[in-house]
């Protein structure tokens, strides 16, 4: 009892702890690098091999096609951040240090969102610029300053991040890495496909606001047919993320670990 750390746990310190924990695992670096490299590589291939066949596809969606891969990477990272603590048992140490519990989930969400958004936004801008070097003399030549382009490039990054934030919440809810990945794939990727088979117009409108569909709308510079506009799409995604994180926080407070 020679030293004292009297002020104790603060939200800022919990954030610092989660930041430290994120960057001191190799998996974080490997997953983020894989996400960035796959987006860039696919973008360069798309730019380099374009022959006019896909002229009807939105250009931003076209050069950022690799984000279909990075989306999965970033969602897996999100699940490792939340559910990973349960599979290793680390959660017991974490919650012993922060027994009020919910600050841990909010700090994880905040740190993850900052990192994922920064990395995906930077990757997207870089990929767009690199692909455009190869598309200079085609009908897909665009600059970041053209209408809707920067918004779509960053919107794509926001879509990836918010979808992954849903995954983080699901990971915290089911407390298992395979369970979290399964829940994410089933609820976010497969469920809308199944529902779209039901011929009911009201359902169609609702489906446009589902996470993956809203994220798709965010990443297109030109309005997609049957898609919501970017503003409502972003709002829908934020609400989806909160709709998963909030019950996760409520359960985190109550459940035994």
């Amino acid at each position, binding site marked *: *009892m*020679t*030293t*004292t*750390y*009297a*002020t*104790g*746990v*603060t939200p800022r*310190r*919990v954030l*610092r*702890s989660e930041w*430290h*924990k994120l960057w*001191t*695992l*190799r*998996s974080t670096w490997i997953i983020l690098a894989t996400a960035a490299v796959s987006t860039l590589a696919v973008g360069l291939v798309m730019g380099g091999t374009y022959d006019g066949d896909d002229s009807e596809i939105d250009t931003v969606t076209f050069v950022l096609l690799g984000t279909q891969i990075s989306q999965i990477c970033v969602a897996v990272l999100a699940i490792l951040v939340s559910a*990973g*603590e349960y599979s*290793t*048992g*680390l*959660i*017991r*140490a*974490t*919650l*012993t*240090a*922060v*027994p*009020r519990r919910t600050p841990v989930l909010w700090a994880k969400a905040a740190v993850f969102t900052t990192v994922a958004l920064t990395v995906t936004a930077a990757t997207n801008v870089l990929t767009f610029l690199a692909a455009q070097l190869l598309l200079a003399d085609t009908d897909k030549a665009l600059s970041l300053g053209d209408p809707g382009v920067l918004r779509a490039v960053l919107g794509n990054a926001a879509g990836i991040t918010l979808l992954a934030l849903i995954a983080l919440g699901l990971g915290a809810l089911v407390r298992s890495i395979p369970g979290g990945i399964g829940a994410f794939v089933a609820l976010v990727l497969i469920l809308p496909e199944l529902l779209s088979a039901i011929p009911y117009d009201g359902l169609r409108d609702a489906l446009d606001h589902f996470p993956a569909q809203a994220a798709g709308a965010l990443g297109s510079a030109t309005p997609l047919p049957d898609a919501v506009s970017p503003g409502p799409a972003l709002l829908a995604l934020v609400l989806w993320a909160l709709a998963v994180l909030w019950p996760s926080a409520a359960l985190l407070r*109550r459940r*035994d*670990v």
Partner: protein
Amino acid sequence: MIRAHGLTKHYGGRTAKIAVDGLDFEVRPGTVTGFLGPNGAGKSTTMRMLLGLDAPTSGRATVGGRSYATHRAPLHEVGALLEARSVHPGRSAFHHLMGLAHTHGIPRSRVEQVLGLAGIREVAARRVKGFSLGMGQRLGIAAALLGDPATVILDEPVNGLDPEGVLWIRNLLKSLAAEGRTVLVSSHLMSEMALTAEHLVIIGRGRLLADTTVEEFVRSSGAAAVKVVTPDAAALAERLAAPGVRVTSETPGTLDVHGTDAEHIGRTAAAHGIPLFELTPHTGSLEQAFMDLTRDTVEYQATTLTGAAA
């Protein structure tokens, strides 16, 4: 100071398994308190409730006068080593501790200090994945000491430690108690507890069986016995038979006599002309006392294979 008031934990709804059943005990500062019980007695569950990891079904547990979760700086109040590993195997020992330290603003110098204290400074940069059981225990103890806590709760700390490590834990626990801290240690190694603990809290099937000092517990348990070697064991056993006297025999020609003393046995043998080759009083061991106390509450008991030789 740790207090449990009617602490109860049921698992699994209506047809519940009762893990902990109305525990009342106090653990005072300045001494090492051993927390004993057979496997499945509820030791780990109780410790998790003390740390707020499991919510009690009823009752209350306080550490330092309040429930654990309400402390502003819990790592400064209580340091804990849990039985199950609570470390990410992909992170290095240093970064594991640093991640916990950040939550309380504990400086890097303290992390290095506890790494040294636990004797794992040389492997601090290595990922925990490659740690032996003993190194993992040392890391867990380093984490428990990180906040320089007033109370230390350790679940099976000597698990996987080599003899040098066991000695280290023993001295560490005694010195923590000597500094005025509250120390609660669970173990199933009775011989180790006998050397380390002064006070005992013993539970079985989730209920309190004893809350006493080691000395008093061994003395009152009636585990003391006299070993007698004689060629006429059956005759002697018959002569010794009396209320309160129990005679057992594990090998032919050897008796263990409980409930009377060597003098009485010697005189009885002499009076009946029974030769004695050995007459040795044994003071009871904590192990024997514990076995006697918990015999009826053991949840997982091995059955003896009979007829195997026939």
